[in-house]
């Protein structure tokens, strides 16, 4: 217990220093905090940015994070969307560099297919069980008319 407390106290005292060391003083990238003029394109960019993981604050999306690398990524995404690139192409480009971890929308791969198959399998089993149960009820005479 006291060890746990020590860990918590240490974490709290060390946290500010960890946050402080990732500070640069350069102005943010041009489109890090500036929306695109075309609302349609901005919506496209926003949709993508909300589903890309920030590499510095790994539980936030780059749309939510103020980390400089997240700002750089936002700026690049907006510029590329403005240049006519499709959001999914940019996502694929990022996945090519950082792996599936960078995206919050899961893809079907040899590793993730059970995630997609499990609900279908559970529904099938449930349907089978229900049919057996109701089927049996009917055999036993069904509802009394």
């Amino acid at each position: 217990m006291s060890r746990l407390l020590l860990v918590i106290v240490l974490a709290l005292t060390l946290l500010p220093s960890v946050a402080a060391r990732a500070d640069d003083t350069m102005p943010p990238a041009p489109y890090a905090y500036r929306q695109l003029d075309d609302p349609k394109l901005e919506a496209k960019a926003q949709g993508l940015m909300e589903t890309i993981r920030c590499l510095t604050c790994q539980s936030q999306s780059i749309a939510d994070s103020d980390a400089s690398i997240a700002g750089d990524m936002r700026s690049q995404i907006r510029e590329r969307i403005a240049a006519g690139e499709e959001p999914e192409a940019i996502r694929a480009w990022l996945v090519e560099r950082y792996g599936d971890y960078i995206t919050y929308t899961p893809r079907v791969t040899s590793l993730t297919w059970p995630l997609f198959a499990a609900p279908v399998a559970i529904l099938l089993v449930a349907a089978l069980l229900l049919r057996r149960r109701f089927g049996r009820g009917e055999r036993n005479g069904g509802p009394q008319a």
Partner: protein
Amino acid sequence: MTEASVKRRSWALWLPLVVFGLFAALFLWGLVRTKDDTVPSRLVGRPLPAFDLPAATDGKPGLKHADLADGKPRLLNVFASWCIPCAAEAPQLARLAAAGVEVEGVAIRDHREDLAAFLQRNGNPYHRIGADDLGKLQIAIGSSGVPETYVIDGKGVIRYQHIGDITPDDVALLQAKLKEAAL
């Protein structure tokens, strides 16, 4: 009910507990395993993307991808003057440079005067230093922070990525990776 179906039921009775136990074990494993936060680049084994960075400091040229494909394996160090671990790894980079390793630098989001002061303070092991003011190259090579060090072979192919500062223990490993890249 037949005897067989009774037996089957008593076995099924334990099933929820077994499932619960499996989940409890899974959660416990998730709690005690050490978390690895690093996001490695997927470009290891693939050629560097095309880039052309301007010089980040006086006296050292900028950096372009063709510079890294001249037949000689070398290190590509992604760093910044505002990054404390980058200062911590400076002696190790100096040792590698003194041993004849060519070290190329990419300064991320750095002011020229800050960088000059950093090099003054920590030494300058770099052959060339490119300025990556918007993190473009950083993202293009799958780097997720500073410092990171890539081993690039003579054809400009990324052969190894070291994430975080180079500690004295890592020097031999990087030298081995460079030797491998020379084969």
